[in-house]
């Protein structure tokens, strides 16, 4: 085995670190200019054909710097969905690669919890295309998307995916910020009429593509969590070293030392799980599912415990929105829930 970065990967890592230090100036345009938006898109579709390791490097850096950009959704999940559905020739992919066109994945529904393969949203045939009815309750970064990739059920057995422009008729969008500060939307489709080519791939055949796209995005989120966890661990260590109480630095208290050790153990385990998920994305389906779900299930737990400890060890400062620690903790808690919480992924692992 080999866990070292190539020279190019090391440069990418440094570049992401510089970018993330930019804070609010860490914009989508810059990410596009750096060609990161193209990294997970195959060369044949106008992308750079990078590997999962490059995605991991970027996401870890974004997590470390608390950059709220939907890289996992827009640059990993959606492009994968398109190419896996056999739509790699679509011009949208080139727009996504160049960062000029953004897509959002509309999969989650209130009624189906974390199950992405059995949408209730209904797509009915009409003579010259399709008509959509139903609600997608949680679409990350929906407001910034030019079009949505919407899962739906038709008469067929399995799920289908439709491409829906943001200004489609009968599509209402409500936007909100999530508790981690990330934007998301609710989409309501009421007799939304779509042309025949809005269906991506085969009718009812989108299951495997959805699974793979979500697995790649999930592995990416694991890397983001890892970055955030490491950042919290370092910030907490620094706080313990500098903050004085009862005439000594907090780092002098053995109980707090051991808590920090537990954060360290959690970070190391999260790194192992992230590597596992990342390096098994190309494996056959069962092995991939087991790796990704094991990683997400465990990281959801580890991330939450690191988030809690970071707040606790920072004391009242950890409760303040003005400090990074609380916001980073919230992002970790949110990642734990995205695309399935620990319970969901343990179950998926066990059934795979």
């Amino acid at each position, binding site marked *: 085995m080999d866990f070292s970065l190539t020279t190019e990967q090391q440069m990418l890592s440094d570049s992401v670190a510089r970018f993330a230090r930019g804070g609010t100036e860490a914009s989508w345009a810059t990410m596009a200019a750096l060609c990161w938006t193209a990294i997970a898109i195959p060369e044949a579709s106008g992308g750079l054909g990078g590997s999962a390791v490059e995605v991991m490097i970027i996401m870890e850096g974004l997590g470390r710097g608390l950059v709220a950009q939907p890289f996992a959704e827009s640059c990993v999940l959606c492009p994968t969905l398109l190419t896996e559905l056999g739509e790699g020739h679509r011009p949208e992919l080139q727009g996504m690669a160049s960062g000029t066109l953004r897509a959002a994945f509309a999969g989650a529904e*209130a009624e189906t919890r974390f*199950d992405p393969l059995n949408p209730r949203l209904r797509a009915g045939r009409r003579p010259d295309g399709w008509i959509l009815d139903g609600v997608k309750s949680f679409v990350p970064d929906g407001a910034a998307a030019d079009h949505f990739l919407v899962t739906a059920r038709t008469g067929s057995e399995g799920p289908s995916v439709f491409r829906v422009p943001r200004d489609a008729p009968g599509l209402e969008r*409500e*936007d909100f910020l*999530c*508790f981690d500060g990330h934007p998301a939307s609710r989409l309501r489709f009421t007799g939304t009429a779509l042309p025949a080519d809005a269906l991506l791939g085969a009718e009812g055949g989108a299951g495997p593509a959805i699974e793979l796209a979500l697995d790649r995005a999930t592995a990416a989120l694991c890397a983001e969590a890892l970055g955030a966890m490491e950042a919290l661990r370092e910030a907490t260590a620094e706080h313990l070293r500098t903050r004085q109480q009862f005439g000594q630095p907090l780092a002098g208290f053995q109980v707090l030392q051991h808590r920090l050790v537990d954060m360290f153990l959690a970070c190391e385990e999260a790194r192992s799980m992230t590597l596992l998920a990342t390096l098994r994305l190309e494996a056959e389906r069962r092995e991939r599912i087991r790796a990704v779900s094991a990683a997400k299930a465990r990281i959801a737990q580890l991330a939450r415990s690191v988030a809690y400890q970071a707040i606790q060890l920072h004391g009242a400062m950890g*409760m303040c*929105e003005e400090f990074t620690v*609380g916001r980073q903790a919230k992002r970790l808690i949110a990642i734990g*829930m995205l695309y399935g919480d620990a319970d969901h992924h343990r179950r998926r692992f066990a059934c795979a």
Partner: protein
Amino acid sequence: MRLDFTPEELAFREEVREFAARAAPDAMRRKVRDGEELTKDEFVAWQRIMQARGWAAPSWPREHGGTGWTLSQRHIFEEEMAAADCPQQAHFGLSLIGPVLYTFGDEEQRRRHLPGILSGDVWWCQGYSERQAGSDLAALQTHAVRDGDDYVVNGHKIWVTYAHWADMIFALVRTSREEKRQRGISMLLIPMDAKGVTVRPIETIDRNHQINEILLDDVRVPVANRVGAEGAGWGYGKFLLARERGVGATQRRLRRAVERLRDRLRRAPGPDGRPLAEDALFADRLTQLEIEVIGLEVTVLRVLAELEAGHEPDARSSMLKIRSAELLQRITEMAVEAGGTEAMPFVPLDDATLPPGAAHAVRNYLYTRATTIFGGSAEIQRNVIARQILGL
């Protein structure tokens, strides 16, 4: 031995229950049930309702306008009010500075301040912590220098809950620099509209404004506003901290929270399309929580019985704080888990609407992280218990 109340206590419970059933306006009751925060006006209105019933101060002795209830009565009262989703009487005048004033204050201070506390007209806040003095309160730096009949106060206070609503603050300040840091601390009563007092809001991670920073810049405070003797403030502060940690009836609120969560699980979609309440893992975790809440309820009764028998609140009151904080954190966490990604929407943009209750669940979950930090962190509580049981 018996777990049950006496017939007299049961009769009292009926009386409270009857009152509780109709005391709070429906809107207020709904907000309490959903874990929504009350406005200051609502808190004040509620205090007026309580005063009209003669129950303005359930924990105070009769001679100062309280009910003179036994600890068991207070416990029953708090349980029943919580069970009926009545608000808590939340202002710090009632729970903290009032008892200090009728215990340590002079006649003039009592005459001047107690009525406003009882009626809800005067809102108090507590000025203890400073940036460099959190758990280690004796490190506080805010100082008061005597100048004629005034003290001139300079410094700052932080983590001051509801300071932006307050008319008065009771603050610990340093009136001299002694070798033993605890000495030389005094307690002053300072009007919030005094010149030189500035309140700065602090936003917490639940995106709420409840706590504040207070800057004190050459604030002149009459010496008559000092409680008790100069340099004796540390003792009053400890008196308050012990009260803050004391036997609360939070366990009844915990039980309510478990009940509400159970209701929620019956409606929440779980895996396979069945309600979450039928999910074996979720249901089992809720059962675990319910059992632990029951245990805490019995422990509260045991501590109550000890206090009634005249024992000092000891390690067991720290224990109650540790356990109730931990349970509250787990219950609010589970409420958010139950929502899944549906629990994530927090701030509606433009004219969007959120699922009812979603944001409150998250807000309570996030804010509840503070229960193991504020008012003596879980680590400090464990230190306190360790000292007592190890005799260190």
